[in-house]
């Protein structure tokens, strides 16, 4: 009986240790993979909003995009998707049109107050994909 008791408690210590390392591994795994952004940034994107501090409703976006060499990205297909930080919201979409070489404009509708982010995806004429994630924090109710 005594031996089984010892064996059992040794075993439960093992299990405990296993559990703790399992948790720590999981958490580490979680925190490591945090930074790998799903968006790849190769070129550059400068995004301005009008109004500058966005409110619920339509908002004009100006995007100045440069290719990986730093030259204005022309004749690209630029799509924007707006999402809220919180799950359970319907995303909004917009296509941007080029108004000057490397300069695109779009209108997007913020449907709710709160923290948003915009996913911008550009496909250049030669088929190169570029994407960015831009935070738009604190969209206000008007």
């Amino acid at each position, binding site marked *: 009986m005594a031996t089984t008791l010892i064996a059992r408690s040794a075993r439960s210590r093992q299990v405990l240790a296993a559990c703790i390392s399992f948790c720590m591994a999981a*958490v580490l795994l979680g925190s490591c993979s945090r930074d790998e952004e799903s968006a790849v940034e190769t070129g550059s994107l400068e995004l301005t909003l009008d109004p500058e501090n966005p409110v619920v409703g339509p908002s004009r976006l100006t995007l100045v995009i440069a290719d990986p060499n730093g030259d204005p990205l022309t004749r690209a297909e630029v799509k924007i998707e707006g999402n809220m930080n919180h799950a359970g919201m319907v*995303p909004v979409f917009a296509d941007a049109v080029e108004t000057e070489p490397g300069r695109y404009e779009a209108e997007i509708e913020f449907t709710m107050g709160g923290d948003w982010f915009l996913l911008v995806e550009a496909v250049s004429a030669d088929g190169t994909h570029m994407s960015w994630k831009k935070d738009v924090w604190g969209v206000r109710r008007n």
Partner: protein
Amino acid sequence: MEPMRQQSRSWAIPFPRDILLVPVIGAFLRWRHSRLGLQLVAGALLLVLVLEGLFGPDIAPKNLTTLLVWVHYRGLLVLALLAIGNVFCMGCPLLLPRAIARRLFKPVRSFPRVLRRKWIGVATFVAILFSYEAWDLWSDPRWTAGLILILLGTALAVDASFKGAPFCKFVCPIGQFNFLASTMAPTEVRARDLDICKDCRTKDCIRGRREEESDKVIQQGCELALYLPLKEGNLDCTFCLDCVHACPHDNVALALRLPGEELVADPVRSGIGRLSRRKDLAVLAVLFCFGALLNAFGMVEPVYELQVALAGMLGTDSEPLVLAVLFVLGLILLPALMLGFAGKLALKFAHSSNRIGTHWIRMAWSLIPLGMGIWTAHYMFHFLTGLWTFVPVAQHLGERIGSPLLGAPNWGRGGLHESLVWPIEMGFLGMGIIGSLAIATRLVQQDFGPRWRAALTPWAVVHVSLFSAAVWLMLQPMDMRGTFL
């Protein structure tokens, strides 16, 4: 008071009052492996959620884990608690690894006596609320999966080291929430006929059913230490139905009952004792209500202004620090002041020499219906406004793993419009305040006799103020911001 309750409990429950006798559902629940069946289904989903949380998109609204955990799970949880009972504990997949571990070896130690109070549960409950806000768990798939893994690991570690179900009873924050919330449920596991229990010699519902020769347990009894003839209400009951399968006299029912009624009774409860002596449980009840307010408060515009102001006053830009101050204010200072004064005034107005400590502990339970109303209203907002969003997110997952089964994501799917959800929220808040006032009234009637009106007044003020705060909160646009500094 007690003899009357005994009487009211002793009637044999006729057919429609016992869910276990309802065709199909009853037959399923009485099947010995019904719990395992539910757990396996939930476990499969949990596995998907962990994998998707760790390896799926880093974007909360596109990740099935953040969506299902923070929008759908919480919504369905409160609905099930109000409509049926503690079915989420019944089917809880966090216990699956533990079930496997228990097959390998049987822990012999009991959970340490000093820890057999709800203080650990109080700590884990607050810790979850705090980390939810501080690290924006709702917007982080990795940490949402991490949280599931931490709960799984802790359940395994605790229950592999100690016998019984100490994780559920003392540690699990979701369990504590479910126990309190299930006091508002319309069903309860209870003995059908107390006379049969009186003559029962084996008491298998608590000891477990044993093989005759070897004395080996073939069906465990209640691991939560609830002895059926003395079990009162749903506190600490996981609806595991082990007692149903263990009782040799088929004397356990899943009975229909009046929600909240157990909060006004104060018999010696099996596995719990008298509620009026349990400071720890009263603290949990207070946190349940004020935590509901704080959790909803964390999502509206004014909280960000308050946080910025607090940060300025403290001269810090650390969000967790500011949040910690807010938690101390909202979960300790505010309830201490409000309930402290209400209790003192109640005794004063009623010219009563009742013990103030006991009075506070008893009245804490009157916060439960309102607390439940606030949790439900808030969670219904997310659940109903995002009702169908799981369709495109699941389609997106299918697309990523190369399964054409679900089709291309249709991102236009949302849920009910805010303006439709609002009356539903108000309905739950309204039921909450009515319930809280009713329970407070019953409690003061028991404790103050003819002077109950005087004693009720300060408590009614507390309840109505909390209710008004909740209505005001639900009127604010839900901002759902993760950042404020």
